[in-house]
């Protein structure tokens, strides 16, 4: 089994110095929030793009040539 540094740290008993412990705990929590935040964002990035977006760009192209004509 590969033991990652993070999981080792989380299983370890709290250090004697309570302040060190809370700093370390805060760091782990911030890291977890960061992972979730990126996941939330990436979930939308990975969704297929609705056709409407490309359709709008196609129409913009057609409109452009129309305007050039007028």
């Amino acid at each position, binding site marked *: 089994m590969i033991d990652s540094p*993070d*999981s080792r740290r989380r299983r370890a008993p709290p250090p004697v110095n309570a302040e060190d412990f809370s700093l370390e705990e*805060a760091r*782990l*929590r*911030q*890291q*977890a*929030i*960061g*992972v*979730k*935040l*990126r*996941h*939330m*964002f*990436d979930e*939308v*990035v*990975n*969704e297929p*793009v*609705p056709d*409407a*977006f*490309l359709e*709008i*760009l196609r129409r*913009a*192209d*057609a*409109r*452009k*040539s*129309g*305007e*050039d*004509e*007028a």
Partner: protein
Amino acid sequence: MSAASGRSTAPKPPSADDEGFKRELVQLIPHLRAFARTLTGDPTAADDLAQDAMMKAWDARASYQMGTNMKAWTFMILRNQFYSEKRRSWRSTQLDQEAAERTLVAVDDPEAPVALDELRQALNTLPEEQREALILVGAGGFAYEEAAEICQCAVGTVKSRVSRARKALQATLERGGFRRDGRAAGDAMRSILADADRLSGARQV
């Protein structure tokens, strides 16, 4: 004569610049949708906003310098669009931060996926400028300098907003002030820690 008569004539050959711009713009659509989703919190409104921003970027393509940061440029356009629309709707609804928070508690849906929902709700309790700074840097992968460009503010301002947002978000999740019935305070943070463990197993952090 009229723009409609353009349909019957051969379209103007597309310029190479326009084609390159369009290709880049199309690649940015998923990111614009994601940013819009975090700003509006509503998928339909987000896509409307992203489409408006995409069109604004397309119409303004002459002012964009190829080779510069197009992602930051389009994000700035989307953000400006969001706030100008929001200012308009504010005048009619007088929606304030407190009302928004009350609504969030009221629409709490017991069927929604727990941890992600809690993170979203906690995000929504942040002041707007802190939320967007954290999203850009913490989720969108922008450097502080790029986020400052997008938000049209100083780099130091972005740094302090991100830092305050991180602290406030953690405090909110630990307090669990928006928790569902029967869930103990601190559960939000615990489920996020557990979820993040699972997610980082699949991806290097």
